């Protein structure tokens, strides 16, 4: 199984969630994050004191998925979240050693 982490724009979250649900993805986790890549931040001025605010607010979506569905998920996310502007985000795919359902104790594919 794989863990997919997708850094997204805030306003794209609902669209991505709906698109993934249509693909049968039943669960996911969302965290508020800040970061930057090629998208630069902005400056704020308070009574003449300037601050460079580099970190841009984003959301990180985490989905754990069987190996055979990884590409579908990636394609769905890209299709829904892309705007073509710098700052669309990134997707990271990593190997996951195990998943356990707390309520029942199921492990592996059953627990995903």
């Amino acid at each position, binding site marked *: 199984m794989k863990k997919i982490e997708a850094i997204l724009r805030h306003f794209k979250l609902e669209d991505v969630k709906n698109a993934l649900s249509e693909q049968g993805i039943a669960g996911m986790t969302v965290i508020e994050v800040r970061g930057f890549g090629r998208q630069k931040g902005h400056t704020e001025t308070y*009574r003449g004191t300037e601050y460079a605010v580099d970190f841009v607010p984003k959301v990180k979506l985490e989905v754990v998925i069987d190996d055979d569905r990884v590409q579908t998920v990636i394609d769905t996310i890209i299709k829904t979240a892309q705007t073509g502007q710098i700052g669309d985000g990134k997707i990271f795919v990593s190997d996951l050693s195990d998943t356990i359902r707390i309520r029942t104790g199921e492990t592996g594919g059953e627990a995903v």
Partner: protein
Amino acid sequence: MSVPIRWLALALVFVGTAIQPGLTLAQETPDLVTVAAKAEEAALAGHNAWMLVCCALVLFMTAPGLAMFYGGLVRKKNVLGVMMQCLFLMGLMTVLWALYGYSLAFGGDGPYLGNGDYLFMEGVQQFWNAETNSPETPMAGVIPMLTHMLFQGMFFIITPALICGAFAERMKFSAMVVFSILWGTLVYCPLCHWVWGGGILAFGSDHAWSGGALDFAGGTVVHISSGVSALICALVMGRRKGFGSSDLRPHNLTYTTLGAAMLWVGWFGFNAGSELASDGLASSAFAATHFSAAAGLLGWSFYEWFKLGKPSVLGAASGAVAGLVCITPATGFVNPMPALAMGAAAGIVCAFACGTVKSKFGYDDSLDAFGVHGVGGTLGAVLTGIFATRACWDIAEGEKLGFLEGGSVLTGQLVAIGVTWIFSIVVTFVILKVLDIAIGLRVSESDEVLGLDLSEHGEEGYIFT
């Protein structure tokens, strides 16, 4: 059938009115002494109702006004620290004022200090008059002395609270407490006595230097003193850790904006209430106050719009406050149109002081106590000397006042400004140095990083689970 009933009702009303006390045809005409007494009672009711509301308005300025205005400007981890300073001073300074503060500031009219009258509220509070066999209320002009004491007491609270803006986010709470006691006693009370208690800066007083100064609501006593002392605090205590490199952005400008609005409203009590009566001059002072705030807001906003391309909320709020600070000494001496000019000037000058001057010299006056109160107060005291008119308050019995109408009060203004600056600087410096040796002024570096809410008070401001 209805006609007889209508006539019966009318007759009943007529009879009922006739037997009301005081309205029967058989009543005696009251004598002039009674009428005069009744008229005085009515006037007192008017003056005192207004002034008691003003007392409440000025207290409202310290908290929630200043507490929110300053609270929003600091980082989240220090929000309670700032609010605690404002709240605690409401308690601390009130007790000092009751015990000896009012006496020190207003006892007698000697040149330098109070003479011991009014200690522990003696001569202020109501007492039993053995001659008339009834309670008596000491009066101060047209209001009870209690009201005067309360009103002045609210000023005694807010002035040290203003200084907190300079050392926010790094002063030990214990040091702030002792500092406020010493500063209130050794700087505020003498200065208050000099300007308002018939001392060396009081306009028209026997002891006055260069004729004394016109300070209606506290340009010197409150704003210059606190603003300049704030600068000394900032210089002596040094900059915050991470100044110039860390993220020191205001954590909640919504508080600051609403706090500024509360200050604006409360300031009507501060300025118009300084007339100590409900009359035409109070209305004039109210108008001058409001106009100056409005022009100050526009001044700072347009300055930013022009210089930076965008007007900020913080600039608009600060501009209004700058206008209010500037007009404070002048509010009962200048007409509304000059007040507009003064406010606009303050908006621009203070914007420049907080933005350009502060960064050029590199001192960390965290919340711009000097930039707004020190600079704005000084500007206001000078402009009072320019725009003051006998048409508002004929304080010099017919003599012209301000420079523009051909008077000579400007000299007294400049002397008072100089005295206030020097006195505030010297005494504040000594207090700080002594305190630093005795108990230390600054929190430790690790406490400063942790935040004063936790280090000084063991609390967190926001717990959003």
